[in-house]
């Protein structure tokens, strides 16, 4: 186990390091920071002095080393736009996105788990096909268009729900359906295949033989066991939801990190963009690491065989 643990953590660190390389190249691509930091009145001497202060006069490899050092120390500089700490600018907006992500995740589970169970029980019937189409529909609907259509139906035509913004629980409904539907298909497939496996297990046969009512067998005995694989996958789905929130937040004027991405890029506020970029990378990598380690803890075959990495 210790060897597996070490190898997975090393892999995660290498992945993270590659990510900082992408972030660095991206930041350099976006142009010379001097152009943003200095105004038109600055002289050539000002530029040279500023370049020295920022380390921009050194070779590119040294610049990367300086960048990496700052990142490791949690020093991301100040926002170009607000001149405040870029990190706190991002952290102020993060709760909004986390709330929306959580609500969407719940919506996704509420739709996906029942469909997954029913399509497994009624395998190869019309209900199975209908469930599949419903889930595929979620994968085929472009998020930005689904959001607009929900606004058109529930906000403009029926006037039941607000079209955007925040303030009440009702404001959560449309954005979380928009964001949550996309992940329904993936979760549904996992639940369905886990249910199909579980329904053939001996304890299910025993429960039926005891004369338990069929709903009890399916929803209590079988589901409780079938829900484990989808749940371990939940962390990764959640991070994907948060990243996908950029589009949903744009459509619904939601003041989260996604909106901040768009605002910051418009203002070319690169310190802020970089934090968000790295934040999502770290979340994704650590979620994956946790999931892999949980699997290894639960299943000795993974941690004992070499190269036993879970492949998706």
């Amino acid at each position, binding site marked *: 186990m210790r060897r597996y643990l070490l190898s997975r953590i090393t892999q995660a660190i290498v992945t993270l390091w590659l990510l900082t390389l992408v972030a660095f190249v991206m930041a350099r691509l976006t142009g010379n920071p001097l152009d943003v930091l200095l105004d038109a009145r600055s002289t050539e001497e000002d530029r040279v002095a500023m370049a020295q202060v920022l380390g921009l006069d050194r070779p590119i490899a040294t610049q990367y080393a300086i960048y990496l050092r700052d990142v490791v120390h949690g020093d991301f500089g100040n926002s170009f736009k607000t001149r405040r700490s870029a990190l706190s600018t991002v952290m102020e907006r993060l709760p909004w996105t986390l709330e929306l992500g959580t609500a969407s995740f719940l919506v996704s589970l509420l739709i996906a788990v029942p469909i997954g169970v029913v399509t497994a029980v009624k395998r190869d019937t019309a209900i199975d096909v209908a469930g599949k189409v419903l889930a595929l529909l979620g994968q085929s609907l*472009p998020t*930005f*268009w689904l959001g*607009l*259509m929900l606004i*058109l139906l529930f906000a403009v035509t029926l006037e039941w729900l607000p079209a955007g913004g925040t303030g009440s629980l009702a404001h959560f409904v449309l954005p979380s359906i928009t964001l949550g539907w996309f992940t329904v298909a993936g979760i549904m*497939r996992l639940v369905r295949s886990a249910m199909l496996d579980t329904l053939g297990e001996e304890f299910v046969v025993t429960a039926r033989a005891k004369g338990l009512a069929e709903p009890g067998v399916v929803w209590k005995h079988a589901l409780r066991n079938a829900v484990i694989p989808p749940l371990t996958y939940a962390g990764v789905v959640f991070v994907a939801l948060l990243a996908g929130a950029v*589009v949903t937040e*744009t459509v619904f004027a939601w003041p989260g990190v996604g909106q901040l991405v768009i605002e910051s890029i418009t203002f*070319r506020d690169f310190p802020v963009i970089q934090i968000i970029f790295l934040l999502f990378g770290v979340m994704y990598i650590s979620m994956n690491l946790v999931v892999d380690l949980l699997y290894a803890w639960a299943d000795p075959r993974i941690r004992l065989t070499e190269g036993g990495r879970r492949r998706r």
Partner: protein
Amino acid sequence: MSLSTHDPADSPAMSSVEAGTLPAAPERAIATRQRPGLIELLRRRKILIVPMLILAAFVVVGLTAPYLAPLSPTETALGMKLTPPAWLTDGVNARPLGTDQLGRDIASRIIHGARVSLMTALAGILLSGAVGTALGLLAGYYGAWVDALIMRGADMTLAVHIYILAIVLAVVWGPGLGNVLLVTMFLLWSRYARQARAEVLSLKEREFVVAARALGASATRIMARHLLPNILASLIVLSTLQVGFVIVLEATLSFLGAGVPPPNPSWGVMVADGRALIASAWWVSTFPGLAILLVVLSVNLVGDAIRDQLDPRLRRL
């Protein structure tokens, strides 16, 4: 039979299912072997004829858009702006789906938009398929540090916030189809690399590869002539499952202003055009979105069915 004539493509035993790979068909046999499969698929699931017809229409419309579209997709006519669809009052038959805020014909723009989607999907999948397959072959064949480096790179791409990358590229180089293709490639190559690598790992110890190596065939030759033909079929199946993804990605990036720039008629741009008008002129956003939905749902239904057909192991999923 001497070893030198033992070409894996000649041996039916080589197209067996092994270690989770799809049945591998040799390159030149694909056309003849896939066709009966498709007809068989249609016979078993007649309902698939509907999405297949939609896809055929999509391809034809995409190819012939300039001849098919009644009006120019970019020519504005402010006097005709925000004309509703023909069946509503104030609608005119010459503008069947209405016009947008610049008076452009929405039907003509959707027809031209099909061309953008079709081109993006084809180019994006060919590019990422080529790059990913090549890297996957290298990783699987050489193993060791080549494998480690390529696969960690593949892991890293999943951790990248793709919208940030796309919008930053659009800011730096200006929005355009090139950026969309670059982002598509960045996202998709790892899927091809993973699949190619996994199959090469199981194939490279087989007799025909060992024999080729013993006869002195170069690594390049083994990968190109012996391994690639055997994994091609499963890569084609993988591709059918990516088409919908690429179309939605292009539309989303264009919606965010990081894809095809206006006034070009991308379906994503068209939905974005109508965003502010959703309360007053619903048709501007609704129809291009419906086009995306129809095409992507069809491609996903067909792709799913083909995957089930070729890989019975996945049929339960």
